[in-house]
């Protein structure tokens, strides 16, 4: 990241949008919850099956810190360029809600485990740095199920404490984000880093939950809660910008308040204003003794995997791919792993083109992940292309067919007869096309360039598209 781009960046753009995000990340790759030994593999089991006196908050139970959760949090902190606190210190955040079985949440307040880091993203005006204020550890509350839909309309509410006590890392950014699109890019980048660190399975529901603070032109900010997807974050923020702009245009005033994002309707609704804000009465949690972690950080730093930005640079230098390809290939860990597997066996630049420009698009279109396409198939396909056995057009068709119907490139090429037609066949077809269409030949000779296209179309028809278009064009021009 170039420091100067930060300085060049206007503090506020013309709309004056300032967005800060708070992301609750579930450290769901741990074996157990943050303060008890309950296992985390509850997703396929019934409600309240993964609980104990501690995560049910039964009278007399006490929390014990999960050291692995501390290590994971340090790992994330280091990957975000944060400095790590010397000791863990937990606080009680006091509020009453039925999903909170103790009547308080154990969280961090002063002395968060990690603070002052950053993530670089592709901003509206080049690469920008989004500063991380802090990352702090806390416990997840239980899950409420409002029978009959919304909290207002339900007759009763069921509580599932399986989620109660799952380790969360809350990552809080500075208000450095300038647009909903940047917010989405930030979230995608963060998810990518977390996947590289192997601390979160981001495919599980609720593994990354977002609250967003947004203000316009230095006015009061609203906080939007309950955003469950990155796309949702972009939509909620867009809605908020429009709402706040309209409010200001009509001479109204934006008040500091908490709003709820209704994903189904795509709108935000007011929950409470500043006057109604909670006083959480934070005070130190005496049941957890401070754990010295300053000594842990250097060891954990050594185990950090190569992160997306570093891998992108390496792809450029090691495989000679373009920066755009390197960025696209490293934006998801699985794609980058897939690419490297293919690149060791075939021409890495050609592989980059076919994975970044073609395969990713086809996967996106079908809403599929990279695991829908076998690495061996990509190796075979790139070889066919490199050896000039099939045309690029056929290459795309091979990918589409495999994704839609299965099979291998060799199967598809054989079944569809996609092998490039040999020289004699093409020459014969060109010869035929010229003899059969004297008018077109005449037109070309008199200067009508498009007549060549007509002749090419005839040749393609005769060869069933297996001829190389460029070659055919040259042959026709030479012949007439």
């Amino acid at each position, binding site marked *: 990241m170039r420091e100067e781009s930060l300085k060049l960046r206007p503090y506020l753009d013309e709309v004056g949008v300032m967005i800060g995000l708070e992301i609750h990340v579930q450290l769901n790759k741990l074996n157990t919850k943050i303060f008890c030994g309950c296992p985390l593999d509850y997703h396929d089991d019934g409600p309240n099956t993964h609980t104990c*006196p501690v995560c*049910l*908050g*039964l*009278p*007399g*139970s*006490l*929390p*014990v*810190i999960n050291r692995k959760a501390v290590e994971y949090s340090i790992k994330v902190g280091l990957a975000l360029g944060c400095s790590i606190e010397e000791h863990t210190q937990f606080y*009680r955040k*006091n509020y*009453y*809600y*039925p999903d909170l*079985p*103790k*009547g*308080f949440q154990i969280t961090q307040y002063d002395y968060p485990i990690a603070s002052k880091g950053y993530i670089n993203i592709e901003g509206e005006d080049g690469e920008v740095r989004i500063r991380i204020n802090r990352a702090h550890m806390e416990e997840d509350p239980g899950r409420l199920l409002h029978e009959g839909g919304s909290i207002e309309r339900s007759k009763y509410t069921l*509580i599932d404490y399986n989620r109660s006590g799952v380790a969360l890392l809350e990552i809080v950014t500075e208000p450095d984000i300038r647009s909903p699109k940047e917010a989405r890019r930030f979230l995608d980048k963060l998810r990518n880093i977390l996947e590289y660190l192997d601390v979160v399975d981001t495919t599980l529901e609720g593994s990354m939950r977002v609250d967003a603070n947004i203000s316009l032109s230095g006015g009061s900010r609203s906080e939007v809660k309950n955003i469950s997807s990155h796309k949702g974050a972009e939509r909620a923020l867009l809605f908020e910008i429009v709402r706040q702009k309209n409010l200001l245009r009509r001479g109204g005033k934006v008040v500091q308040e908490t709003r709820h994002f209704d994903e189904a309707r795509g709108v935000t609704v007011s929950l409470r204003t500043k006057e109604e804000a909670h*006083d959480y*009465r934070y*005070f130190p949690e*005496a*049941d*957890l*003794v401070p754990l010295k972690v300053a000594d842990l950080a250097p060891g954990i730093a050594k185990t950090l995997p190569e992160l997306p930005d570093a891998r992108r640079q390496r792809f450029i230098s090691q495989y000679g791919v373009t920066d755009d390809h390197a960025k696209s290939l490293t934006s998801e860990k699985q794609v980058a792993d897939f690419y490297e597997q293919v690149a060791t066996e075939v021409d890495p630049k050609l592989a980059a083109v076919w994975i970044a420009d073609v395969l990713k698009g086809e996967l996106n279109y079908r809403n599929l992940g990279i695991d829908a396409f076998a690495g061996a198939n990509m190796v075979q396909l790139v070889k066919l292309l490199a050896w000039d056995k099939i045309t690029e057009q056929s290459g795309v068709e091979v990918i589409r067919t495999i994704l839609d119907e299965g099979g291998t490139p060799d199967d598809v090429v054989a079944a569809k007869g996609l092998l490039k037609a040999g020289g004699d066949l093409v020459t014969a077809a060109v010869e035929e096309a010229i003899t059969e269409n004297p008018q077109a030949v005449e037109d070309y000779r008199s200067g009508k360039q498009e007549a060549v296209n007509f002749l090419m179309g005839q040749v393609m028809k005769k060869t069933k598209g297996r001829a190389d278009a460029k070659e055919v064009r040259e042959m026709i021009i030479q012949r007439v």
Partner: protein
Amino acid sequence: MITVSQTLENVRDSSAKEVVSQCIERIEASKFNTFITVAKESAPEAAKKSKNIKGSLAGVPIAIKDNISTKGIRTTCASGILGGYVPPYDAHVIERLKEAGAVIVGKVNMDEFAMGTSTETSHYGPTLNPWDIKRVPGGSSGGSAATVAAGEVPLALGSDTGGSVRCPASFCGVVGLKPTYGVISRYGLISYANSLEQIGPIASNVADMTHLFNVVAGHDPRDSTSVPGEKDYTNALVDDVEGLTIGVPKEYFGEGIDQAVEKSVRDSVHRLEDLGASWQEVEMPHTKYALAAYYVIAMSEASSNLARFDGMRYGLRLEKDHDWHTTYSEIRSQGFGEEVKRRILLGTYALSAGYMDKYYLKALKVRTLIKQDFERALKSTDVLIAPTMPTPAFKLGEKISDPLTLYMADVNTVPVNLSGVPSVSLPCGFSNGLPIGLQIMGKHFDEETIIRTAYTFEQNTEFHTKAPEVA
């Protein structure tokens, strides 16, 4: 009163089942309202099983304060809000007792959620002092001390947040220990003020108290504040104080102290001097701030610790459900007693934005100063000796309507909890037939020295041989 050695003998001569059933008969005939729940079904079962247990307390009945979780036995904290709550798990100390073969005969009365000095705030009515039924047994572990004093059981567990073991031990003429913070696991102890409290053993004499302490003390990974290591505290049962230096803090003999109490305590120091110890006056200048700091910290912690009692998963349930906020406040309005509500409100206030610096954070600073007082005083001395309570047991109803006067009674016990040091109370005299308690405080994790001092005093005096006439 009954001793452990006597009880073990009775178990040998008859059977644990017989001993336990006689114990339950005594409890049911009690005139002092000592028990909230008698374990009439599980106790005989446990007595039968104890035959096969080699532990040091095999077949010995024990009473448990009703804020310690007992699997399968109702645990109420003497509060209406926990009516019918049966814990699905045992506290660490209960596991240890069962391993040692002790038989839990029931749950004893206390001030509601351990908030009190007289056992008068119990939802189940006050416990009476066996020495004089017009007087309080002290609190909050009033049931634990009274049942031992009345000779109903040989042993009991209490808990001490600001004197809750030592005060009733003093008022009932028995021996009670508040160990160093971290020595006994709090896992399963229902928190009132979690940074201050410890479970503590109560018995009719120092040796029995030490045997019980030995069983329940020790490391537990489920309590992060539990310290590692195991010790055999019975090694400290030595009749010898030769060379011991006693500190006598003058602030502990301040305004409001009963003359007879002061005399008994000073006589006790001289008795120990006769036995080979030396003594000196020490200064603990911040003692006067201890009460205020204690109550701010204890109430602040309580306001958070008691937030979980919402009647959703266990405890009191209302006939009719309303929305969440209404239900939550109605259950708590009905379930909690007046003193508990007072402390939750005051604690909530002390932690609120704008008041936190003035109260809670200031109290933490005082706490540090009190700790330093103890460190300084115990640098040149081995133990500190003072009255446990400034007076003998007061009358039922005498102070309950005036919380401030009642809080003042804790003036000599709360500094110990603020600093975390261990302290034992044992009988050292009588005033108009009411027992007087001697408080011996020691260095962090040096229970041995206070046990040795208490044991030597007891071996060379007669106070512990007196018992109230209960028949």
